[in-house]
């Protein structure tokens, strides 16, 4: 770990327009790759029913929860309407030498 940055996965492990789950200690995260090849990270569980978002569906900048179809903008964490009302926490992401890092120094 360096200044809160932790290595998560290879960039190629995530398909464009998709999301994967990353567990670290007792925490779980969702790491996204957009169709344009940009990477984002949020908390891994939906704020509504604590379901893993990695099982969900990526549509542009939105992640849809697999259980109740609640949607978040994963670039900002903003909840996009019922049944999700509480925003997701987001984390800084960087890609170096083909690896995806997220910063969780809180």
């Amino acid at each position, binding site marked *: 770990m360096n200044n809160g940055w932790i290595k998560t996965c290879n960039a190629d492990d995530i398909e464009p327009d998709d999301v994967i789950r990353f567990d670290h200690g007792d925490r779980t995260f969702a790491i996204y790759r957009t169709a344009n090849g940009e990477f984002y990270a949020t908390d891994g569980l939906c704020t509504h*029913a604590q379901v893993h978002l990695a099982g969900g*569906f990526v549509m542009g900048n939105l992640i849809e929860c697999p259980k109740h*179809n609640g949607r978040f903008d994963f670039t900002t964490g903003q909840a996009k309407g019922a049944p999700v009302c509480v925003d997701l926490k987001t984390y800084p992401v960087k890609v170096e030498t083909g690896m995806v890092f997220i910063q969780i120094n809180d």
Partner: protein
Amino acid sequence: MSVKITRRDYSLVGKDTQLAEELGLASAEWYACPIPRKRLKELMQRRDGPAIRDTLLWFALLGLTGWLGWHFWGTWWCVPAFIVYGVLYCSCSDSRWHECGHRTAFKTTWMNDAVYEMASFMVLRESTPWRWSHTRHHTDTIIVGRDPEIAVPRPPDVWGIILGFFSLKSGPKEYKEILLHCFGRLTAEEKTYIPESEYNRVFWTARIWMLIYAATIAWAVSMRSILPLMLIGLPSFYGAWLLVIFGLTQHAGLAEDVLDHRLNCRTVYMNPVFRFVYWNMNYHLEHHMFPMVPYHALPALHAEMKADTPKPYRSLIEAYREIIPAILRQVKDPAYYVKRELPPSAKPFPGPVPAPQAAR
């Protein structure tokens, strides 16, 4: 030999609510058939085309049958016109309410929301309370004390089911709640699944609905005819029968308090006309397991899951050959339920099938 009938508490604030929580049945993990992520992503793809086509056809049929009913009012010819209009108005709205509530029918969000609001009014389900009640239904499907949408609590109220064919039980209850919401109040049960941030939306939608009803009644009074109410309001009652016929196939007679949709949902094959009316909700097991898959992709999802799920019912008739005897038996023996059999190719049910209610 007489069987002692144990009554369970189907309310969301009673003893079975606490029991479900203690048994780990509330907000639990559910079984999901293994489908490769790549294939699931293909099935989850949203499209506007199919829903726009179906919605335009629905509106056209509503307009045509409504016009025929109006035109032939006072003759017997208006009867078949209003029978079809009522089904399109209310029963068809059930599936539009459902699919657009999940925001999967259209790719475009506002289209889902617009059709959802309209269908909610037509099927007489207040849009915000029912959105949240349906959310809970998906979290805790047929978990007693948690699921607000258990259509046939045990022992079944057969007379209530019959009244349901014309919304004569649910309709008055819904109007009572609309009135309550107009005055800025919610029931104790609603407070368990609707977040406070949504309360104002509930109240204002109820007030708008009341205005629509008041305007329609005023129109009818000015015409000295119930004809306007035959077009707006009453179809939620006289057009509900097909909704009930379809809807009872979803879960009636199947297991309660299980964490596997293969045990508590039915998939029933239907003809293309019924599937248009029901927007493929007959693939109900598939929908519950993967609610992100839009209605137009459910037949393909069904093909993917088939080897891991119980045999689907070949028709409504086959489904009702099971449902009617099961309901009648549950009147006397509420512990009875239909246990679904898995094919040899399927993964076993995770864990034991919970004991029926009488064992509690």
